[in-house]
């Protein structure tokens, strides 16, 4: 600190270069507290063995114990392992949920000649709805907006019947519509009930 204070002459202090972990984004020394410690270590060992030794050699492990007792350290490690397992389970569940979720493309008849197309469920695949709406509007030269449906969920409403085209866009993975398995896409039709039924 005193060095920084005495050198207030016209010299700018150079920034410290911090090595951040490519897996968990923390400074390397904090990987052990993240939820992907095993992956962090593996990645560093592969990318930069020298740095790996700095943090994970026997001496380094001994030094980091500091004032913590061995018993407390063991407890900490146990908790870290638990946390990691939990994070992995969560990631698994998220992936399963993603694979199970559906994108519904609905052709809705507003009156005899007028249709709108609603697209529901894109967000489950990490698609930014506003960007997708913009893409539809540009592609089909029509209006498209993000609105809340009656259930309070967000969906995209595109003016005109473009349901078939949207299915194709998803199949080809155009623009922001990347990575949606076509099997998860369903096309449905919504006609207003006619008097007396049909």
């Amino acid at each position: 600190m005193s060095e920084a204070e005495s050198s207030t002459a016209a010299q700018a202090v150079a920034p410290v270069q911090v090595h951040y972990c490519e897996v968990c984004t923390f400074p390397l020394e904090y990987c052990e507290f993240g939820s992907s410690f095993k992956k962090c270590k593996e990645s560093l060992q592969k990318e930069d063995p020298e740095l790996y030794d700095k943090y994970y050699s026997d001496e380094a492990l001994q030094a980091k114990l500091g004032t913590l007792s061995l018993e407390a350290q063991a407890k900490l490690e146990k908790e870290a392992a638990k946390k990691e397992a939990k994070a992995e389970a969560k990631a698994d569940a998220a992936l399963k949920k993603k694979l199970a979720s559906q994108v519904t493309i609905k052709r809705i008849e507003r009156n005899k000649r007028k249709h709108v197309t609603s697209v529901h469920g894109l967000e489950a695949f990490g698609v930014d709805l506003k960007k997708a709406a913009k893409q539809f509007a540009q592609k089909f030269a029509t209006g498209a907006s993000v609105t809340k449906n009656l259930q309070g969920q967000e969906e995209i409403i595109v003016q005109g019947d473009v349901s078939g085209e949207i299915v194709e866009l998803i199949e080809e993975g155009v623009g922001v519509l990347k990575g949606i398995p076509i099997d998860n896409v369903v096309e449905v039709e919504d006609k207003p009930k006619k008097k007396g039924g049909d």
Partner: protein
Amino acid sequence: MFKKFSPSTDISGQTSVKSSVQRSLRTNILSQWKVDPETFDQIWPKKEPITLVKCREHISIYQLHGEPLFFQHYDGPLFPTLRLVHKYPFILPKVGVDRGAIRFLLAGAHMMCPGLTSKGGYLPPADSGLPAGAAVAIFAEGKEHAVGLGVLKLSTEDIKKVNKDIGVETVHYLGDDLWAIQKL
């Protein structure tokens, strides 16, 4: 402050900052942080305009070329982001917590006095004590880089005396939602 903070819903808008306001920001920072003007010019070059990102609950984030540099809650102290503190660790006064407290801090907890006064903790000596309300960088036992930033709930001397309950209110920490925003 940045727990459950989501850029898509918690940011209300971005605006450019008038040059007179930029000037006063610069002056305030130079008076609040321990940084000399030359070094600060390197962090925020004079001719480069900063952008204000307005967020929920009166949080203002200031960014340069899309990268958050500092932030403020209402008209409280101007905080550098944790990444900026990693680059220039001397700009905020330092306190330290013991290794046992790291886990709690990373979950967003405030720091209890005993974690600061124990053998692995660190508080400045009496002659350079800090008042309650001061912005501090929180370092951790056995670690080189700061793990979080906070505001002193009690003066550092009172933390030593009282030695119970919250000593530092955590404002920003490794892995919170501001940390997650590398670019806005």
